[in-house]
């Protein structure tokens, strides 16, 4: 579960990125986080992943109070999260299998488990045939599916996708969203940050809208009529 209570975030340069946000995301939910550029979406994600700390208020992620979380607890928290980036962030010198396995190896998983789990997630994202390919040999959509497989491989309870369709064409974007929806149906909480209104409105999911660091909307799809 993710919970924000009266959260404010002001950066050192004085920018007020988040201004009094209250938000709860329950386990197993699928949530779109939308808003224009500079609205505070990325800051909100960084508060969840522990890259930054709130100036005031309480952020709670999967049972960890992010204000008081200890440095040595951070890896444990992050193992409960799977992050998908807009620019994929794959390692070019590693194959698809190695890129996915890498995420398991760095948390010290045994080789046998790595083999089994990687094969499972590659099948789930439909990349079994590209297991030995290198990222640069794949299309944007396929690369993003590798990134999703990597985010998924440690069996996190939450997947956070930051603009996952920002670098791919519309047809592939829909595929990626369907894949995330499928992952959500398996019980994983999914939080998708995007500003692609049409894509959001094709799914009947909860939409949280923020602007200028404030929560300006929270409801089901179709509700996203907010004008940028």
């Amino acid at each position: 579960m993710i919970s924000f209570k009266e959260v404010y975030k002001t950066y050192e340069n004085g920018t007020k990125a988040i201004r009094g946000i209250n938000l709860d995301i329950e386990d197993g939910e699928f949530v779109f986080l939308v808003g224009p550029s500079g609205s505070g979406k990325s800051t909100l994600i960084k508060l969840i992943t522990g890259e930054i700390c709130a100036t005031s208020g309480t952020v709670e992620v999967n049972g960890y109070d992010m204000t008081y979380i200890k440095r040595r607890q951070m890896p444990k928290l992050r193992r409960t999260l799977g992050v998908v980036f807009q620019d994929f962030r794959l390692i070019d010198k590693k194959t698809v299998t190695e890129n996915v396995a890498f995420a398991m190896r760095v948390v010290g998983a045994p080789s046998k488990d790595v083999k089994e789990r990687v094969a499972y997630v590659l099948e789930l994202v439909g990349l079994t045939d590209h297991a030995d390919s290198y990222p640069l040999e794949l299309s944007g959509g396929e690369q993003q599916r590798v990134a999703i497989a990597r985010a998924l491989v440690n069996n996190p309870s939450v997947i956070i996708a930051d603009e996952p369709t920002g670098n791919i064409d519309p047809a592939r974007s829909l595929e990626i969203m369907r894949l995330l929806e499928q992952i959500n149906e398996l019980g994983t909480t999914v939080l998708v940050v995007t500003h692609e209104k049409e894509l959001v409105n094709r799914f009947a999911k909860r939409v949280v809208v923020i602007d200028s660091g404030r929560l300006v909307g929270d409801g089901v799809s179709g509700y996203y009529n907010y004008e940028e």
Partner: protein
Amino acid sequence: MKSNSFLYFIKEGVTSVFSHGFMSVATIAIMMACLFMMGGFTLLSANIQEMIASLESQNQVVAFVDDSLTDEEARSLSAKIEAIENVDTVEFVSREQAMNKFLKKYQDNTLFSDIDATVFRHRYVITMDDIEGMEKLQTDLYRVPGIATVNAHLEISRGFVTMRNIVTVVSIVLTAVLLVISIFIMANTIKLTSFSRREEIGVMKMVGATNSFIRWPFVIEGLFLGVIGSALAYLLTWGVYEILYTRANGTVTFAFVNLVPFSKYAVPLLIGYGAVGVLVGVIASSTAIKNYLKI
């Protein structure tokens, strides 16, 4: 540490050395150059110290025996002198031996042809363990009953001590400076390789890798580069020193220079190079990725 993790670190560390070929070669070359300079300077300083020690051993103190003592009494002082601290060797020179030595030195001078042995005193020629204690030895010798006067070239001893101290301080400072420079250059070279991998480190952090798990492959990479660099530097130092040794000991031009054979320093130098290689490699790689671990 689990065994599969350990194998993973080794594999990642070693693979990284080869996958970043150019940077690895650059790091090894820099390491080699720095260690070669450090080793070269250490050998130079060791040879200077050796030369000073050799000159020191030739520096003697002469204690003259009081004329009032009989020959037997004069000879009996030997035990008392040997008991003095810092005394290495003691040689009794009778007045007859002293006269013969004097005459031999001035054999072409007719002025001394009819000189009498009573003009000379019995004496002791003493060498010391440490030239720095010459002044104290002189004082101690004066305290021995029967010793009339002591000849000690204190200004020469002070000169040697000053020279030895300067060489020691300069070698320590230069070695330390070169060590810091090596760490700095190595850290920056490894930082360049890790800069291209900052995203990789970022992903590792995001999936929940601990800092130590991320750091280990880099440390092993640094260690590997450090060991290769130091091994090559050792071979280079050995080769160059052997060439200099052969030239210095085989020509008249360098007859005054008596280099110590490399074998005398081979083991300590090997240990020193290995230790510096490992130390610099580990410190440099740990420092290089420190900033990327703060996410």
